[in-house]
């Protein structure tokens, strides 16, 4: 009697459908055979089957395209390090495998790259480029640097400051005189450091959020770079171009100015073919013009912020003293 119930249950079980439970996979059938397989193969990417190795210039071009348009961070970083080693290993006076005119437009967007290793590698590569060529492309380089300085991510802001330092070392005259170079860069400095540009009421002191948290460590550095920038733009450089009077060429005066110019795009300041530039986008070639714009728009907030920073003392205080010295030197002989 006890066993017949068991036997009936077993017979009934054959015809019952197993209940499906939520979250659990369906029960395997009795005659289930596993048909999966693991293919044991080596997959090789596209290969070029020539006997000669590709020439170094074509390899250079290949790694350049990898660096500028690869999806993976490590690949970009490795491509940049290959380019850096190529440039640093060739003799100094050799021409570049590819001219700077082609290298810079492809690599400048990497200033805004998300990964830190790519940015540091990019800066090492940029320092190997010849200074004269970089000066020709100052406007383009500044565009990306400014975008980096006002980026949302703090690390990109810090690295963009390093790029601006390099630009000031290499081509400071071009940086402050290119169209939009003076006013727009100063505006991005103001927004980066939180010093209000608009002359609002001084009741609301703009919170010194710059000295809190992680970004607080970069505030003195920002002020130092700002002082370097202002020095390049406002302080007279010692090496003024001396006019060599060629007395032997009596009927001719200023012959050098009538020869074919040696600067790239020597008539850019005429702006013959571009749309009209407003005050922000204008080229300020003279030191007096730069002083005038600085005094009109930026001097007040810069001085206020500098005073606040000096009161805070410490690193920020020391940087503020350097900034003050540059301001005094630069605007001393300006009488607006």
């Amino acid at each position: 009697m006890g066993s017949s119930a068991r036997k009936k249950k077993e017979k009934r079980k054959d015809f019952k459908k197993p209940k499906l439970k939520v979250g659990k996979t369906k029960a395997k059938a009795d005659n289930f055979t596993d048909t999966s397989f693991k293919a044991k193969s080596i997959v090789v990417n596209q290969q070029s089957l020539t006997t000669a190795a590709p020439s170094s210039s074509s390899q250079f071009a290949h790694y350049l395209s990898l660096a500028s348009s690869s999806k993976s961070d490590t690949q970009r970083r490795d491509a940049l390090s290959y380019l850096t080693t190529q440039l640093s290993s060739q003799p100094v006076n050799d021409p570049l495998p590819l001219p700077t005119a082609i290298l810079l437009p492809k690599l400048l967007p990497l200033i805004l790259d998300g990964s830190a290793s790519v940015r540091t590698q990019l800066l090492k590569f940029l320092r190997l480029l010849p200074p004269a060529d970089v000066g020709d492309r100052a406007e383009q380089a500044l565009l990306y640097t400014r975008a980096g300085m006002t980026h949302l991510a703090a690390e990109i802001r810090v690295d963009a400051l390093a790029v601006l330092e390099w630009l000031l070392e290499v081509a400071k005259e071009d940086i402050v005189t290119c169209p939009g170079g003076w006013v727009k860069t100063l505006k991005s400095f103001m927004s980066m450091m939180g010093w209000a540009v608009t002359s609002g009421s001084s009741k609301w002191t703009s919170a010194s959020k710059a000295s809190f948290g992680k970004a607080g460590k970069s505030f003195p550095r920002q002020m130092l770079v700002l002082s370097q920038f202002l020095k390049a733009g406002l302080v007279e450089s010692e090496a003024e171009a001396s006019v060599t009077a060629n007395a032997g060429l009596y009927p001719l005066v200023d012959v050098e100015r009538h020869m074919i110019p040696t600067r790239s795009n020597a008539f850019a300041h005429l702006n013959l073919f571009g749309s009209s530039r407003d005050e922000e986008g204008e080229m300020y070639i003279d030191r007096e013009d730069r002083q005038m714009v600085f005094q009109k728009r930026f001097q007040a907030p810069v001085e206020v912020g500098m005073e606040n920073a000096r009161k805070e003392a410490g690193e920020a205080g020391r940087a503020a003293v350097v900034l003050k010295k540059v301001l005094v030197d630069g605007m001393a002989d300006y009488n607006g």
Partner: protein
Amino acid sequence: MLSEGLITSIRAHPKSANTAIAKDVGIYLHELHPSHIIKSSFKKSSTPVNALVATSTHIFAAQADKAVVHIYSRERGNQEALVSFPERLHSLALVGDGILVLGTAEGRVILWEICTGRQISTPNAHLQAVSCIAATQSHLTTGSEDSNIHVWSVPRLFSLASNETQQPLRSLSNHRAAVTSLALGHSSSTTNICVSASRDNTVIVWNYHSGDLLRTFLLPATPLCLALDPCDRAVYAGFEDGSLQLIEFLQPKSTLNPLYDANLQTTPVQITETPWTAPSEPGAALCIGLSYDGTCLFSGHATGKIAQWDTGRRAFSLELADLNAPVTNLLTLSPFPKQKLTRPSTVVKPKLGEGQYVFTAQLSKSITDNSFEAAINHQGLPTEMLEDAISRFYGPIAAPSYSTSSSGDEKLRQENEELWKVVNEQRALQKQTFEKYTKLKSGGT
């Protein structure tokens, strides 16, 4: 906004099956500012080197291996006419805006006046095809594959009176191989230079008014095309290996223009600076053009690439376009086109017979003088304005004397007397009231 433009033409046989580029298009119009775009194009044209010219209203393209010139109208954007000539054509040039010069395969030069249809042809002064032509308003220089360059006088060719066969004014035979390109200087004096390049790897600069050879430059490669600086300070030559070279005429340290230094005229100068190279292999530089201010150089190559070079830095700047077929002609358009008083709206096909010629054109501006414009465009002050101003200083001065009584003065004097009378009456009245007031006041108190 001002803009610079380019006109480029290709020679057919596209290099690769590139579907991005239309197969039929032969002539492209590019616009360079604010950024490079291809503005419009014309179909069905295949031109050899030096065979494209453009006026403000029309584009003329001599077809390769055919004795035909295609004429395209720039305003209407289509092919306007197809003119055939008795021989195959190798080169084209324009004299001013209204005369088309054609160089044929047999060494003859045909001149065709666009607005009247008059056609003049010279005898076979050259022994082989005329490969390049350059012209100013008064002179025509033709270079040919037989290494000779002839100078012709345009007014003499077109004179209605002469019946004898035309002869060139002078010729230069210093080249040893085919002449590939000619360029004339921009001055309007009698010392204007002509620069010629030839396949014997030399560039010769000479004065075509007097026929003097000024300088010979020896080059490392074969120059195929020339572009002269807007101020005639240097010439840029494009080589067969795709590189460019700058040949400077002026030296900053000397008062004398080295071209006219008699001591150096007989010795050829070897150019030692390295040519400018492009990073990719673009093929032979078939045509070259300078921008309006001389800071940009554009070159068209045999692989179809158009490259832009920076003359200030003496280096390659960027690759502008790829047209997929050899770019044989490149014309740079000035952003300040000259406004002429008449323009040909349709060309008049050439008639061979002599007879009455009818000038057909469209008037585009009024002839009436605007005195302000005339004053601005004058050098210094115009004499009429000066005379007018001086005469005003010396005019009769009206002396203020009351004895001279003109009718106006009389009226004024009368009015004056009446007013004085009124004033005196008022004063008397005021005195009376004041007396009354003081009397009352003193009386009152």
